[in-house]
């Protein structure tokens, strides 16, 4: 059974008088432990696809099974529980709570899971250690670099031990060196058994995934498997293969 299983999912928005068909009967499945990059121009429907997979939005029609559970008809409260237990989010702009320490940012999903304060602290410190920020737990986001902030965000996505991490342009605000570091981290998580779904418009970044899905006009245009580049190897060899604009 696939971790993500979308069957003929459509999503239609009403923008004033105009009906926008963001997704047109997309069927799409992702197996557990896969590392998938979703590419596409803006307006291709990739963000809508991510929102539906991320249980932030519901499809207009079609079915969506996440980890065996039909989630396309759940209400807002139930979707919140699914996000809390099964998903982790990483955003382009980090979306950390300002004036809140790294540790407390990472604890946030556990707060809504009802975990005890002591257990939260223990697990959040472990997650920060895992992303290499064990020494910066008390720092606030404005005291950290972009790469560090994104690591905190990844720790937050990991802390509740989700099945799936959804990353929306996670390297969009980072320089290329830091981007590779972040990709190395995602590859590590993939190796540890977490499924990663990544949205990017940069081919360099998509190269680190083992499957690349290209969206266009609300449908899946191409879906290819590839041998991923080793981000750790790139870091060891002293940098990215080529500089790319960010």
């Amino acid at each position, binding site marked *: 059974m696939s971790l993500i299983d979308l069957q003929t999912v459509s999503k239609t928005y009403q923008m004033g008088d105009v009906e926008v068909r963001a997704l047109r009967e997309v069927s799409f499945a992702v197996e557990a432990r896969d590392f998938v990059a979703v590419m596409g121009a803006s307006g291709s429907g990739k963000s809508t696809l991510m929102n539906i997979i991320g249980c932030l939005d519901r499809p207009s029609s079609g079915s969506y099974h996440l980890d065996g559970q039909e989630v396309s008809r759940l209400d807002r*409260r139930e979707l919140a529980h699914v*996000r809390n*237990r099964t998903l982790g989010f990483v955003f382009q702009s980090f*979306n950390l709570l300002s004036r809140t320490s790294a540790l407390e940012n990472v604890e946030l999903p556990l*707060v809504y899971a009802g975990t005890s304060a002591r257990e939260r602290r223990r697990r959040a410190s472990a997650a920060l250690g895992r992303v290499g920020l064990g020494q910066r737990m008390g720092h606030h986001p404005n005291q950290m670099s972009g790469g560090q902030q994104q690591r905190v965000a990844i720790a937050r996505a990991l802390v509740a031990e989700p099945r799936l991490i959804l990353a929306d342009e996670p390297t969009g605000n980072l320089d290329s060196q830091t981007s590779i570091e972040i990709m190395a981290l995602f590859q590590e998580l993939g190796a540890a058994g977490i499924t990663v779904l990544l949205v990017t418009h940069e081919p360099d970044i998509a190269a680190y995934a083992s499957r690349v899905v290209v969206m266009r006009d609300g449908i899946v245009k191409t879906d290819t498997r590839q041998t991923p580049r080793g981000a750790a190897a790139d870091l060891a060899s002293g940098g990215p293969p080529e500089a790319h604009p960010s």
Partner: protein
Amino acid sequence: MNPLETLRVALRALLRNKMRSFLTVLGIIIGVGAVIAMVAIGEGAKARVEESFASMGSNLLIVMPGSTNASGARGGFGSMPTLTWDDLRAIRSEVSSVRYAAAQLRSQAQLMSEDQNWSTSVTGTSPEYFLIRNWKVSSGRQLLDSDIETSSKVVLLGQTVVDKLFGPSADAVGQIVRIKNIPFEVIGVLEKKGQSAMGQDYDDGAFVPQSTFQSKIQGGLQKFLSGTIFIGAISTDATARAEEQIGALLRDRHRIGPGMDDDFSVRNLTEMANAQQEGTRTLTTLLASIAAVSLLVGGIGIMNIMLVSVTERTREIGVRMAVGATPFNILMQFLVEALTLATAGGIVGVGIGIFSAGQLASRFGWPMLIRPDIVVISVGFSALVGMVFGLYPAHRASRLDPIDALRYE
């Protein structure tokens, strides 16, 4: 997410914008503070009025003897002595709601000092009379039971009588006053009491032991008490009960069957008590309206800032929702924030109210009284206001779409 956690998050959010939080609740602080201060001063004033009422006798009852009925021409109350000294003793010992009972035998008489004279009312009574009327001596001593037992020729003078007989600043104690040409020794001067509502000067009078009064001033029957009986009930609330009990006792003692006219009457000062209650009610209504208006204004301020806060923190709301906050979690977060803000405002307001009442009271010498129930009600009402006015912003926050919220700039 447990309530304590929610409270902690709310406190952090509020402390992050200390100045704004403070300004937001200023309306509630001032409103509650003003109400607490006014109620404290108002209650103090009320207590003082009540006290002075008590001194005049808000728990005072007067038993008057009955009327004559001579061939159909009925005299007024007091036209015939029907009360006996035994009645007085019975009231004193048998009626539980009566604290004091004293006879008041009254007569108009000419008083003479060495070089002046003055006509005033002379009252024969016992020491309890002064307890009922809460009347102390400003110099000398009170009447004693021994004065009555020995029928001493001693007199207590009101301040007006002293002024007329001896001059305004004279010390009358120890002087001799002649009443009906019989010399009485002045043992004390009573405190100034002023005028009654009807313009009667309380200080224009002389008081002698009731036994002396009967033997020297106005000879009367031994058995009957040719005057009235003053009763001090145990409390203002007990006057009605005392009135009933005394009535029943006297009807029994005088063998008055059902349907027959009483040969006495018991009077109280309900009119005064009613007027006093009316005043209190008006004051309470006034204060309640001020409180309601100020809390309304404060509540609108809270709603305004909470709406701003929700807009400002749209992204935070989006993040919280993305990591698993349910709409209810978000609703509670903002509701608890508004509630905490308003309750804190209420508590600070109470503190400021008590402080300013204390300052006013000590500066102007006003009495003050902090009523705990008013404090609790004020804080409770502030909390309610926070809740009511926080509900709409909190609801708006909880209805946000996480996608839009995350994208909000």
